[in-house]
């Protein structure tokens, strides 16, 4: 009976579509922790990935080293010219740090928004389907990594910890398109302006800094860093530099294209930083009327 088989196949298809929708709905929900089968599978896979990714990195590193050798001379010349500048800068930083510490002592104010404690980690995997930009790192909750910690490289902020298991953790990059992936940022200059990093322009490969006040005067190459006001990230982590400022779609605020300081593609070593200051409760940040709803 071909009719019967056709119906059976149709039923299987319909049932699997229902299961698909249910599963997607389940995994899109805001979850504080993954279920234990997921954690177990991810940790096991992470273990295998560590075994394979180390030799692969060494192999790739060799070619990179050869490539680096080619332009060593040019780089050396440039770096030498920057060296004098650096010594001066270092002295300045030192005196400023000391002064800052003294002033803090006078004020009796110990902690600041920019305090953080770094944890070193190595990238062992990356989401191959590039819709959601996720990295897997080799440190987990046993090393003190928790959800919502920020992740930086030596050149700037790259994202935050999405969730952590016993031995591995997942990092969501700033470039991934997710409504909850927002960073409160500030543009440093003679006057500081606040905005929010919301989204990533694929074609220009730049972050979008939105909600800057309309009267703000921002120029190219100004530094954008985290403000620490969002309650998740510590302040003063470099995000990137301003490339172009345009009016927003409604013309009420301005939007800036920010060239990320960190490279989102070639990441090997990262630092996970824990915000030293306590995180405010969500109920403190939204108004009381909203809470009542």
């Amino acid at each position, binding site marked *: 009976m071909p009719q019967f088989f056709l119906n059976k196949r149709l039923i299987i298809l319909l049932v699997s579509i229902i299961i698909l929708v249910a*599963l997607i709905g389940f995994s899109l929900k805001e979850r504080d922790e993954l279920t234990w089968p*997921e954690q177990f599978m991810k940790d096991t896979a992470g273990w*295998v*990935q560590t075994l394979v990714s180390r030799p692969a990195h060494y192999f790739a590193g060799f070619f990179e080293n050869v490539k680096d050798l080619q332009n060593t001379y040019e780089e050396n010349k440039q770096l030498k010219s920057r060296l004098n500048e650096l010594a001066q800068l270092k002295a300045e930083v030192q005196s400023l740090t000391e002064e800052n510490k003294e002033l803090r002592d006078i004020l009796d104010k110990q902690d600041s928004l920019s305090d953080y404690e770094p944890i070193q980690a190595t990238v062992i*995997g990356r989401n191959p389907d590039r819709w959601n930009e996720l990295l897997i790192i080799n440190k987990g909750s046993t090393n003190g990594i928790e959800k919502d910690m920020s992740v930086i490289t030596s050149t700037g902020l790259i994202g935050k910890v999405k969730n952590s298991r016993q031995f591995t953790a997942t990092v969501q990059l700033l470039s991934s398109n*997710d409504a909850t992936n927002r960073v409160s940022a500030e543009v440093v200059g003679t006057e500081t302006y606040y905005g929010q990093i919301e989204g990533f322009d694929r074609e220009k*490969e730049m972050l979008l800094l939105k909600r800057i006040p309309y009267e703000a005067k921002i120029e190219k190459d100004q530094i954008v860093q985290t403000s620490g006001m969002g309650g998740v990230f510590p302040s003063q982590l470099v995000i990137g530099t301003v490339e172009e400022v345009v009016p927003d779609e409604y013309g009420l605020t301005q939007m800036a294209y920010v060239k990320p300081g960190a490279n989102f593609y*070639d990441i090997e070593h990262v630092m996970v930083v824990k915000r030293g200051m306590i995180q405010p409760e969500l109920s403190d940040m939204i108004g009381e009327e909203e809470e009542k709803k």
Partner: protein
Amino acid sequence: MKKAFLPLIISLCFIFESIFVELLTVESLVSNRMVVPHFLMVSIIFTTIYGSRKHGLMYGFIFGLLFDVVYTEIIGIYLFMLPLVAYIASWIMKVMQSNIVIVSFVALLGVTLLELGVYEMNFIIHRTDMVFSQFVDIRLMPTLILNLIFIVLIAIPLKKYLDSYAEALRND
């Protein structure tokens, strides 16, 4: 012995996809293009066509689930798409003759279907705001070129192995 190799090959494809995007910086060579490896899909389609259909669908299901849990963190998309594409590929091969060139094209078609399906689902749940023309230009074309290169490299050795795998299955 012959049969134990297949899970190993497919697992290697699974892990190699992640290492590939981690190490290869195509973005630094060709700016603003995305290449996505679908080595897992290709090997599952080959298994379905040359090995056995049942095993192909089974691997599609298992590795689809693993892919979702380990990499994408949205359970369901690959779990659904991998067996479906493998099934469609085996269905197409019923009317085609199994010539290696034709199988390679069917595998490439499978990759296209997978990309389209995953794009549509991600578009529906707002994980991406890329419009369709942008998607074809930035993502689909470079991806197909990469996977074509992979298929050309792997087709003949994989076919040889899977023929012996099917032979071993028949002898059991």
